[in-house]
């Protein structure tokens, strides 16, 4: 096994990428599911091994085809990417375990092998973004993951998935093309695509106009992909009309990977070379983060479709992640990384619970779940834990990242009070929108059941992954040393690049 260790960064991408065409060849949907899940489990094992390796030896660098960088393409895994690899592979695996029960209600049987192939390509693309150290490679993997995400979302049973995914496609392509323009301009000035090499060569041309323009294009493009507040228009409908398990997978990791690229590009390449770039970065992103937290939470409070409610909550949570990063301090970045990890567990749990609900209820509207907790106690209990974690109640994973975020805000001097107030108001709003669901499910009279729905507890096969996610919420709420350590290392790595 040990001789395989140096190749793990490459295998992380190669395994799902190579399995995808094989899955298409499988005619049988059960066989296709089994292969996909096996590949995803394999990816999860590789991610766990990589976390161990990164913990031992620091950053791992892999030279593709033994071509030395900057001429060859290098892969690199550090604390930051290892943490998110865990998120991506974990979300994919839990989603797939739930898919065994759930997908057949939403995707036709003969289309399922293609559906799973697209899933694996999305997994390969997202992992590829995380392992690569090359700016253009990031673009290619971003498009692989986006294109397969469009296919997965368009697989939704509701016809409204189509306009939703078209909007996502248009906005996502504009975002990726903006990124491409930015990379092109940096390449024009430096002649390199390797991120580490870029940082060094930029020192000569730091404040040149093309570089400033490139920084703008890259930031805005990735903000579009990451659904940072005013650019989030594609997200609520895309998440709402996607097949339920796809929402679990994408809500847990897709936007966070774009935030990862944004933070990585900014800190590794630009922060060290542009004058006062840290201030510009903060002044641009902090107001957007604050607005995102407040407005998106408010919209979530008034939303009656359960999936869209959680989707708006995702927009708000992206605000917390960006807020942490925009503080530009070790604690702030730690909070940001931690929240990426913890929010994906919390939101994954909540969406998994909705996936269970969807097996009994044809329309996931608030008015249809009156008193449903009596018939589906395990499902609703899972939703409650996911909701508590979203709010940030002590004992759940969400608390840890909110705690770090507030500590980071308190370091900010004059800004401390308003920022803490925003975080607390956002959390109170989360209490309201989670409570609306919980109140209806537990205390309302069961009146609004749609004709033809027979409500019964979800089968064990889907409750199992849901409750694994629930236990992860509690586990990382009580023993958070692993994500905290990785996030801390990542934050120090990032801050080390600051001028």
């Amino acid at each position, binding site marked *: 096994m040990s001789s395989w260790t140096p190749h793990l960064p490459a295998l992380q991408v190669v395994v799902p990428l190579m399995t995808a065409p094989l899955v298409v060849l499988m005619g049988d949907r059960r066989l296709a599911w089994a292969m996909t899940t096996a590949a995803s489990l394999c990816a999860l094992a590789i991610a766990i091994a990589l976390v161990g390796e990164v913990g031992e030896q620091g950053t791992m660098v892999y030279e593709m085809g033994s071509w030395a960088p900057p001429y060859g393409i290098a892969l690199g895994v550090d604390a930051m990417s290892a943490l998110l690899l865990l998120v991506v592979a974990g979300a994919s695996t839990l989603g797939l375990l739930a898919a065994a029960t759930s997908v057949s209600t939403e995707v036709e049987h003969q289309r399922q092998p293609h559906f799973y192939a697209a899933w694996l390509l999305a997994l390969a693309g997202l992992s590829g973004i995380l392992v690569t150290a090359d700016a*253009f490679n990031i*673009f*290619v993997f971003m*498009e692989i993951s986006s*294109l397969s995400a*469009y*296919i997965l979302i*368009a697989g939704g049973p509701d*016809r*409204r998935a*189509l*306009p939703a*995914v*078209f909007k996502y*496609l*248009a906005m996502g*392509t*504009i975002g*990726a*093309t903006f990124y*491409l*323009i930015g990379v*092109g301009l940096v*390449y*024009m000035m430096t002649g390199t695509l390797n991120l580490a090499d870029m940082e060094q060569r930029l020192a000569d041309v730091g404040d040149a106009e093309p570089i400033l323009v490139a920084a703008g294009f890259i930031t805005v493009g990735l903000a579009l992909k990451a659904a940072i507040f005013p650019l989030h*228009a594609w997200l*609520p*409908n895309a998440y709402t009309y996607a097949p339920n398990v796809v929402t679990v997978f994408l809500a847990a990791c897709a936007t966070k990977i774009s935030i990862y690229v944004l933070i990585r590009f900014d800190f590794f390449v630009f922060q060290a070379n542009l004058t006062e770039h840290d201030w510009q970065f903060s002044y641009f992103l902090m107001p957007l983060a604050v607005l995102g937290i407040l407005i998106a939470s408010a919209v979530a409070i008034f939303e009656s479709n359960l999936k869209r409610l959680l989707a708006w909550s995702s927009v708000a949570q992206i605000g917390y992640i960006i807020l942490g990063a925009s503080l530009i301090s070790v604690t702030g970045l730690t909070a940001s990384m931690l929240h990426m990890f913890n929010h994906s567990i919390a939101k994954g749990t909540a969406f998994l619970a909705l996936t269970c609900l969807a097996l009994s209820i044809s329309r996931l509207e608030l008015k249809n779940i009156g008193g449903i907790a009596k018939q589906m106690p395990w499902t609703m209990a899972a939703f409650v834990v996911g909701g508590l974690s979203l709010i940030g109640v002590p004992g759940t994973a969400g608390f840890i990242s909110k705690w770090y975020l507030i500590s980071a805000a308190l370091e900010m001097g004059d800004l401390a009070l308003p920022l803490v107030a925003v975080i607390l108001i956002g959390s109170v709003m989360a209490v309201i929108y989670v409570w609306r669901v919980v109140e209806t499910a537990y205390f309302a009279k069961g009146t609004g059941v749609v004709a033809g729905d027979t409500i019964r507890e979800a089968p064990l096969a889907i409750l199992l992954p849901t409750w694994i996610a629930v236990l992860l919420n509690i586990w990382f709420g009580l023993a958070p040393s692993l994500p905290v350590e990785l996030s801390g290392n990542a934050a120090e790595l990032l801050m080390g690049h600051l001028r």
Partner: protein
Amino acid sequence: MEYLGLYNYWIAVVLLMTGFYAVIAKRNMIKKLIGLSLFQAAVFLLYITMDKVEGGTAPIFTADGAGQIFSNPLPQVLILTAIVVGISTTALGLAIVVRTKEEYGSIEEDEIQQMDGQETDSNEGSPKNSDFFVSARKPRAEDRNV
């Protein structure tokens, strides 16, 4: 004159903005896709332009090739990849348009929004005169359905 000499960049910018405008302003899905393709093509031109060295030739080493000037081949290779990505995006977009036409009988976003009724995302903004357009177009949409 110096600025006119950079005409390739000017063309790239004009194409970029034309495509961007079409994606944002047009309500017809095919027109949006055309805009998206233009938008991407502009970036291809930007990359191809920056690798051009005045008097440069193809990067092939000859036996007596000392002092030869080459154009940088790397951006061209990069853009080859980007073209493939662009084609895939357009193909997928067109597939979605076909599916939309099958499901809704229309590829006008106004009409689709109308059909989805109140459940459509509110932040799309309701276009003015939508009633007029729908009433004018509705018979045609029904004809196509038959």
